[in-house]
Each structure stands twice: as C-alpha cells, then as structure tokens.
C-alpha cells in the first residue's frame, strides 16, 4: 500500500501485452516515476504521471503493478 503523496518507480506491470501498450499510450510505462495523488480504502487510485497528467487506475490493476520507493525492495502498489 502506497500512501497518497508518495513517489514511486514502476518496476513491472504484470498485465497482458495489449493492456501494457494501452497504459504506455496513456503515459504509464516501466521505469517511470509517478506520484500517488489519491489512494483511499476503496475505489480506483489517482496517479500523477509525467508531472501534469492524472490517471485513475482500478484497484485490481494497481495490484498487478510492482513499484519501488527509491532504493528499496519492490512492493505492491495497491
């Protein structure tokens, strides 16, 4: 669980090829650093992607995105 306001690096996106491509089109690809804008107890998350873009992603998908807070072990985003 990454709290709102934290900045993390995307390490791996465990989704199918099509969905990974779609996420990349929306600006979300592996290696990117994103800021978590909102992560409440339920419902989708809001990420700040490439500074100015705000993306909402479902909680289910968020669980399949591995992230690393700088210089530490990978963890689940959800």
């Amino acid at each position, binding site marked *: 669980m990454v709290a709102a*306001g934290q900045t993390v690096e995307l390490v791996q996106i465990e*989704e199918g*090829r*099509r*969905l*990974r*491509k*779609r*996420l*990349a*089109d*929306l*600006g979300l*690809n*592996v*290696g990117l650093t994103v*800021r978590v*804008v*909102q992560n*409440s*107890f*339920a*419902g*989708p998350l*809001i990420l*700040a*992607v*490439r*500074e*100015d*873009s*705000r*993306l*909402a*992603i*479902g909680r*289910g*998908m968020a669980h399949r995105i591995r992230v690393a807070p700088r210089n530490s072990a990978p963890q689940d985003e959800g």
Partner: protein
Amino acid sequence: MPTPQTIALAGNPNVGKSTLFNALTGERQHVGNWPGKTVEKMAGIAQIGGRTFTVIDLPGTYSLNAYSSEEIIARDFIINEHPSAIVAVADAANLERTLYLAVQVLELGVPVVLALNMADTAQQRGITIDTAALSARLNGLPVVATVGSRAVGLDSLKKAICTQTDGTPRLLPTPVDYGQPLESEIAALQVQIEADPILSHQFRPRWLAIKLLENDEDLHARLSGAGYHALIEAARAAMARIAAQTGEDAETLITDRRYQVIAGLLRGIVTRPDGDGETRSDRADRIITHPIWGVPIFLLLMWIVFQFTAYVSAPFLDWIDALVGGPLTRWALAALDAVRLGDTWLAALVVDGIIAGVGGVLVFVPVLIFLYLALAVLEDSGYMARSAFVMDRVMRSIGLHGKSFLPLIVGFGCTVPAIYATRTLEDEDDRKLTAFITTFMSCGARLPVYVVFGAAFFGAKSGNLIFGLYLLGIVIALLTGFAMKRTVYRHKPPQPFVLELPPYHIPIMRNVWRQAWQRTQQFLRNAATIILAATIIIWFMLALPVRGEGTFNDVPTGDSLFGSVSRALAPAFAPAGFGSWEAAGSLITGFVAKEAVVSTMSQIYVEEVGEGTSAEDEADSPGFVDDLREIARSFGEAAILTVQETANIAPRTANLLPVVNVGLGDWLDRGEDAEELTSLQSALTTSFARTACSAERGKLAAVAFNVFVLLYVPCMATVAAMRHEFGGRWVFYQVTYTLLVAWLAATVVYQGGLLLGIG
C-alpha cells in the same frame, strides 16, 4: 475553382482540440459519422490566407495504435486521404504526455504544425515553454502556442498552416532514432517494403516497418489478408531477434524510446515552479472523488441532469406539442381546403399521419437539447471522468463500467437521450449492453398509463402501483445486465479501469451549446424517417375497413384493419389476463409513443371523447394572425416556465430530504393540470373485469397490463435511436427480448396472482 486542400486536427482527448476546430471553422461545420462507425465525424470549412481548406477534426486518441476504432479512423484518414497538413494538438499544460501522439504523427511523414493548446492553463500553473527553441529542435517545424477557447494564437496557427501547405518541399523533422538493434531491423524491413511498389505507395516505408515491429494487430491482419506473408514473417523474425538480444520486446523498446526522445526535446525548454506539483484540481478531487463523499455528490448531479430532461424541458415540449396539434394542423387543413382536398382521405393522412408523426419527432427536441446541454457541461467541466471513477465500484458489481450509470438515470426521463448518453462509454459492448438495459428504466411517457390505471383500480393506493413498477423496471434492468455479462459477454474480460482525469475548468457555453444543438440535429435527421413511416402505417391500418359498413377513412376502430390485427393479437395476451382487442390495440399504438396508450384507450374504450374534440375545433377556429399571436405568446410563456423549472430544481432537490417541504415556484399561477379521465377509468374497470371474468381478476389483469407497458418494446423513437447507434440487427434483438420479458413478466404476475388466490 480548385478542390480545397484538406487539413486534419489530431490530438489526445481533453486537449481542447474541438475548441481549436471551432475557432478555425466558425459556423461552417458538418457533423456526421465515419463510414460504418458510430464515431462522430466533424468536418468544416476554413478560409486561411485566401485559400479554402476542408478541416477534419479527427477523433481524440492517445496514440495511433489500433487499440480503439477511433485510433484506426485517425490513422487510416492520414494514410489514405493524404491531408495537406496535420495540426498536431498537444496540451501545453500536459506537454510530455500529449507529445507522444504528436511524435507518432511526425513519423507518418506528412507536413505537421504543432499547436500547444491551453497555453493559458500552463501559464496559470507557472509553466513556461520556449516554443522557438522547441521548433528549432524539431528542424524548424512550426510550433504555435494557442488558446482555442479564446482564439488566441489563431493567426500564427493559420500562418503556419499556410506555409506548410504552399507546396514548397520542406525538411521533415528528424524522426525518432530508435538506436540499435532496432534501427538495423527497421532498415532491413524498409528495404523489403520499398521493393513492393503498391506497399511503398500506400504507406511510408519507415513508418510501416516501425508499426510491424510494434506488432500492430490491425496492420498485421491487413497485410496477411493481402498476401504479404513473407513481410509478416520477416517482421516476426526481427521481433524475435530483438527480444533475444535485448531481453525486452520490440514494442516496449519503441514506446520507451519515443518517451525518451520527448523528454530530451523538452529538456531545458519547459520550466516549472518548484513545489509538490499539487494542482487545484487535485485538491478538488479530494472531496469529489472521495470514496464516501463522492457518491452523494454524484447522485446530486445526476438528479439535476434528470431534472433538466424531465421538468425543465417540459414547457417547450408542451409548446411544440400544442403548436403541431393546433395551428400547424389548422394551417395544413386550410391549405388542403384551398386546393379542394379538405374533406378527402388525403387530408386525414396529412393531418393524422404525417403532421402527427412529425410532431412526435419534434417533441423530443427540447428533451434532447437539455440533456445534451447538461451532458456537455459535465463533460467540458471535467466531471464526466470523475463520475465514472466514483460509480465504478457500484457498477462493477453487475459487471458494467462506472460510466454506465448515467444513461440509466437519464432513462427515467426519456429513453431516447439515454441511448445517446451511452456515447460516453468507450467500449462498444458496454455501450450496447447499457443501451439494452436502459429501456427497462421507466421513462416519463409510461407514467400517464400507470396514473390512469392506478386511479381506476387502486384509487388512493395508486402510488403503490406506480412505485412498484419503477422498482420492477430497475430490477429487470440490473438482472438483464447481470445475466448478459454471464452469457453473451461471458468471454469478454471486464474492461480494465484506466481513465484520464482532465483538470477541472469552467465550461465554455458557446461550445456547449454548439455541441448540444449539433447532436440534436443528428437525432432529427436519423429518426424522422422511421417515425414518420410508422405513423403513416398505423394511420392506414386505422383507416382501412376490413368488415362492417365502414368505408376508407370512415370506419369504427373495431372494424378497421387495426381492429382486426388487434383482435388477432389479443389471444396472445390471454395468459396475462388482458386478452381483449382493445388492450392489444392500445399496446400497438404504444409502440408509436408510450403516452399514446392512454389516448388510444380514450378513443377505443370511450368513443365519444374523440368525437367531442373534433367538433369543437371546427366551431371555433382562430384566424392566421390570431394563431401567430398565440404561438408567440405561448412561446414566451414556455420560456418563462423553463426558467421557473430551472429555479425549481433547488426546492425539488431540498424536498428530497424527508423533513423539508419547500413550495415550488408557480409564476404563471397555473396549478397542476387535473385531467378528466373518469369516463375512461370506469370504462377500463368494466372492460378489464369483463375480460378477466371478475372484478378482482380484472384488477390483477390491470397490474399485468401495466407490467407489460413498462417492459415491452421501447417506443419507435427509441428504436430509431437504437438503429442509428447500433444497427438494425441489434434493434431486432432488443425488440424480441423486451417482448419476451414483458410477456413473461405480465403472465407471471397474472397467473402467480391467481395461484396465490387473488380473484
């Protein structure tokens, strides 16, 4: 005159592309659909530097992959139509992400003008962009900062379009360098593509090579369909080599490289203030998209949208209804009299068939305009994306996307705009399913039927019947959605939820109004034919005598073709307890419009009602000038009432709270219209009791009849909208399914009631 050159606007959703399109083309626009698609096609004419251009607003897309039909449309247009130039629209306040599409457009090798739109928003956030330096890094490609909503930068944009289309050959910006091993694979494929004259003529070889390596499904399928198996094989082998060498698949490498190039382009060119980057929209979203507070906010806004379609649109709906039924009909009769056709069947066809049919279409205009205004405001302000965010959790439980909720709510007002409201859904199957279940939400036109029956059979307790029917509609809609997700769409994985949340901003009323009006016109064009045809057919059925003494256009309803068709259908309704031809006949006209059920019943059950009104009309016919004066007066009245109903939204909303009871504004002192229906009501109770053999059973049959009215085939305006949006085959499924469900439910109610010992 030479054929005008074509330019196209390409850009992400939410970058203000359509405001730029409006600024370029002004009023000279045409809205249509892309061939074979339900995606809107916007085209316009612009005068730029003394030359005439056709301007195409391509659908908003995030990339030129073949992920959605919008993306295929945008890219096919650029490849096949060879526009003279593309205006790639990026968002100055979200530059890095929105340049991703622009870079792909550049790779297509057409002349490009880069517009950095919404420059004002960027400025407000303290972001500065050195456009001249960016242009220099792109080999002199024109880069223009614009604010589409206020036509800022329009002159520079036009100048840039002129220079890019004047025919002089121009240096193309340096394409993205994908590095090794990609570049050598691209080069090898490129050689193979260039060797084929047809392929190299149709596509830019380098672009096609990159797309094949990106594993573009659409292009792979198209090329293998055309027999280019060797090329496909070469591309696959190249992809395998790249994966083996780098440990990463080619498409990921290509995507990453594009973003790297963009980051490099912007380095030192974009400066931004220090801070955590939190925007005003982020702060607003803490409440608006809050998992708890977000829901009541959403419901409140939906309630307001519903108020607009149900109440605020009503005064003008009534005005059009009165205009068509009164003056327009009288004028047509007078005109027919003038050419000595006044008393012929042709006059009756024109008045009762055609004019009534046209009226049936026109009454939807106010409803649709107000719905589209409300939707455009929600969309333009940025709230629409949030509504999907908030409702996603709830709708997901029946397998639908959060955005499906809005059409369902609109469906309580009128199903036609609800069908169009599904346009906000991106997934075609989700759209179809949502439209499919929307017809079960009880629309405003079904209410008069419940009211008449409720008063006739249940007296003071009629509210229970009405509430029960609304509830039943919701339950059937949800069950249908649930069932279809588990049968028809079983193999379809749930749509992953990923959605851009554009920053909030105040809607630009000019654009909102333009959009609402254009969409309403589209409905009119598409629905007019089917509705007119259905009205004329029913008129002929009512006019044709098939037995008894009547002659054409002078026949009691029971003896007409309509009567005998009703008689033939009646036994089908016997299991549901209302197997009389009168009931069946009312249901047939209910297809024209559900509110027609009551008027047909008045005609059939109580013959004298119809005759009384027509005699009255002839005795006291106002002159032409009186008519015009009355039209103007009632228009003014409708305008006042519209404002009144808008103001009434506030007390109506407050009244939702159990302890509050605020009076509604009644500025013209009209009170509620109390319609005299007593003769119809008593005729109904007698007739239903006679058909069902007892008063109690008659009551049960009446409930079953109302259940049928709630669920059966949506009215033909809805059918027209459905056909427009999803095609004839889908309409067939819809009609069949709703008839089946309606019949089953009505029968279950009646037979179940009998089993329980009622009657």
